[in-house]
């Protein structure tokens, strides 16, 4: 097994764990945690391909991962703001109980 496939396997496992968390948990914040894990697994792939790719001096993969980290931070801020507002409105963060968009 090459080192790159080891990193790719860990990233795939982490992505699947995040996907399972996002699909099975009831709490909206835990769903966001699952999405963060999936984003991080993708970042690990980007960095691993950058490191073992043919032109690491071009910095493409690492710059992409840095932008991805910035976008993920914005996503987390907006997502958690939405969760707080939904909790204030519906008095729950249970996604099975929030089943309509009308206020």
């Amino acid at each position: 097994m090459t080192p790159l496939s080891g990193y790719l396997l860990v990233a795939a496992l982490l992505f699947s764990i995040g996907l399972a968390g996002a699909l099975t948990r009831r709490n909206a914040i835990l769903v966001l945690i699952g999405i963060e894990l999936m984003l991080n697994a993708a970042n690990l792939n980007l960095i691993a391909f950058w490191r073992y790719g043919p032109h690491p001096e071009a910095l493409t993969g690492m710059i992409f991962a840095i932008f991805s980290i910035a976008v993920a931070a914005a996503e987390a801020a907006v997502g958690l703001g939405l969760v707080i507002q939904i909790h204030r409105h519906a008095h729950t963060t249970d996604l099975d109980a929030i089943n309509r968009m009308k206020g």
Partner: protein
Amino acid sequence: MSWAFYLIAGLTVAGGLAAVLLKNTVHCALALTVAFAGLALFFLQLDAQFAGFAQILVYIGAVAILVVFAILLTRGSETPKDGVFSKNWFAGLAIAAGVFAVLGWAVLQSASVLPRETAAPTVTVLQIGNALMGRYVLPLEIVALLLTAAMIGAVIVAMHEKEGSK
């Protein structure tokens, strides 16, 4: 494959598993921090020092704290009496297992064509700064705009509405 790789991989996967499996939401957030730290160690091991320290600053420093704040503000740490997993948890688990099977199969099948060990690249912060200010200056500006818009949007969304006023 060095022992450090297996150690960090075990730490990261254990943190990720604990983050989605634990009952108490605060414990989930702390396990998530462990997973983020493991990923930062991976980045450092892959000679991406700048990305590794950005991961520590942004994820452990900001996102994890934000998650803990959201949990405490929504009183999400109280375990609901009908379990923490949704009604269709089995379908979600099956989808995730299927995705992992496909991804793992693809990685193992393509192992022979993946690039082998290469010499470690030397990347200085000066190079990254030059790249960000030269070739990637437009994406940098767009990310700056996105962050500003996200911050204003998050504040407006979470702002407290006064009773009776719209």
